[in-house]
């Protein structure tokens, strides 16, 4: 990263002590920027998170004194069928939700970035799924996915499909139905982030490209997409995190069913902790979830950095 602050003044190579002093100054300045947010963050988020991670190695019922159990909670996890099922489902959900939402959000943002008439209305409409009450979302999508009377299957039948899926009443099709609903719900949210990102691309790039005769596809591929990389990185990381943490939509739509076909990790964390009172085990699952997301994020970070070089 070509960072201006660290760059030595041209023509005057710094001596060791001066560099040290500058480094200290930068550290001070950097921290002074971060501190106001960091104090609140550290006290009310970081400390409880660390406490929760400590609990992963303890047995605690939320009332009595915690007891050290070492890696017992993790050993228990290896034998827990629910954990295996939930992990698989969570990965399945993420694999569907992340790319589809990313594409839908980007597509919406690009279409709605123009100077269309009524663009405000369409942007608002695209954002509405995110603010519509979850109960309404669940009821209407259940109706859309109804095996016999639902428009989804009626459409599929009309275009010639037979042997139609029963969607939310089927262990195979419940997760795809949930993914579709969640993409529909989240695309407007990430569209807002992309819209902001699109504003940072200087108009001159497009003018120059047009002058060179590049068509729309080329302009998208060679200007828009590369310029959006910091936004895409952000959206990708947030999407990954949110996908792995999915809970609310699943609870109202399927509650993990039918059977365990849509049971996800966050649901297990909630059930084992708040409901059952096995806070140690619940924290251990959360820690595993955290490590998975962290490793995915670090990979994304590395890739992003390499591309920028």
């Amino acid at each position, binding site marked *: 990263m070509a*960072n*201006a*602050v660290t760059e030595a003044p041209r023509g005057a190579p710094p001596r060791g002590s001066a560099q040290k002093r500058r480094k200290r100054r*930068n550290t001070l300045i*950097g*921290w002074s*920027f971060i501190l106001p*947010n960091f104090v*609140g963050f550290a*006290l009310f*988020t970081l400390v409880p998170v660390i*406490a*929760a991670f400590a609990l992963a190695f303890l047995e605690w019922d939320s009332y009595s004194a915690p007891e050290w159990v070492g890696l017992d909670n993790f050993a228990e996890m290896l034998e827990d069928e629910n954990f295996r099922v939930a992990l698989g489902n969570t990965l399945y959900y993420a694999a569907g939700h992340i790319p589809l939402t990313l594409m839908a959000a980007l597509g919406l943002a690009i*279409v709605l*970035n123009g100077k*269309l008439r009524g663009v*405000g209305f*369409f*942007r608002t*409409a*695209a954002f509405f799924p*995110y603010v*519509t*009450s979850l*109960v*309404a979302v669940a*009821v*209407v999508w259940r*109706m859309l996915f*109804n095996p016999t009377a639902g428009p989804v299957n009626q459409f599929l039948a009309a275009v010639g499909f037979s042997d139609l899926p029963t969607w939310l009443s089927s262990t195979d099709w419940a997760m795809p139905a949930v993914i579709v609903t969640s993409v529909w719900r989240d695309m407007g*949210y990430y569209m807002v*982030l992309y819209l*902001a*990102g699109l*504003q*940072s691309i*200087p*108009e001159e790039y497009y003018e*120059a490209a047009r002058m060179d005769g590049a*068509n729309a596809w080329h302009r998208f591929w060679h*200007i828009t997409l*590369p*310029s959006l990389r*910091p*936004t895409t*990185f952000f959206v990708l*990381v947030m999407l990954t995190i949110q996908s792995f*943490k999915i*809970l609310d939509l699943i609870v109202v739509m399927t509650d993990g069913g039918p059977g365990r076909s849509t049971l996800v990790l*966050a649901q297990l*964390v*909630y059930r084992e*902790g*708040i409901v059952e009172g096995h*806070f140690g085990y619940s*924290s251990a699952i*959360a820690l595993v*979830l*955290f490590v998975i997301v962290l490793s995915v994020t670090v990979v994304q*970070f590395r890739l992003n950095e390499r591309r920028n070089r």
Partner: protein
Amino acid sequence: MTALRTAPEPTARPVGPPPATKPRERGSRFVRPVATYTALIVVAALVLVPFAWMVSSSLKRDNEVLTVPIQWIPEEFRWSNFVEIWDRIPLATYLGNSAFLALTITLLQLLTGSFAAYGFAKVKFPGRDALFVAYIATIAVPWQAYMVPQYIMMQNAGLTNTYWSIILLQAFGAFGVFLMRQYYTTIPDELCEAARMDGLTEYGIYWRIILPLSKPALASLALLTFVNTWNDYMGPFIYLTSNELWTVQLGIRSFVGQYDAEFAMIMTGAVVSVLPILVVFLLGQRYFIRGIATSGLKG
């Protein structure tokens, strides 16, 4: 991560003979917008269906809401629901509380988030990237996992059942820092360098150069933070016990009983609570217009 402005220039090479494309563009001048609008209207309809159901349900009796098959148009329009809800729950108080929390948290998040983001994006110091990863990483921990330890801390600090708990909890999240930092990386460092030459301090650069340039990002952060705090249910539910502190989301859920729920009232409440978001969104989205940010970069 560098600002990416160097990427596009070399790749935007001319493709195909320019004159050939001109007539086609003229021909599609009418077809294109029609196609675009048709597509947009179809998508908008699809996207608004559940919302339409929500509105329709808000005009029904409680026992007419969850019918099978769905009844789209109420037999009789009960506009009285929108009057009744103000009597049933102190809706004005709840709306006020929600507005207070959402505005305070959004403001704090914007201020501290964008401030910290400058430190992460434009000042280089040891440990910066590790700290940044720690910030992001905490977002990945499900709240359910640390809810109880957090509550115990708040209880010990005597902050439960006050707005402080919710504000302290949500105003300093990592989300805003991350969002703003990513946006700042798209602002060329040369701009900061030039300002430094002119004798501006880092704080001056943040306030005079960077902040005005990041209006679209600030707008999207404000929008998303506002919506998330406005719609948050679990946080206020756990921390706010006294009825006079409740937010509108808690008010809506107070129509859910042990074995049944008043669905029409729930939907009425949901419609009422969406209206402020609508206003905020319409105001905020105006900042997503090309040129607002880039105008500053031309110099």
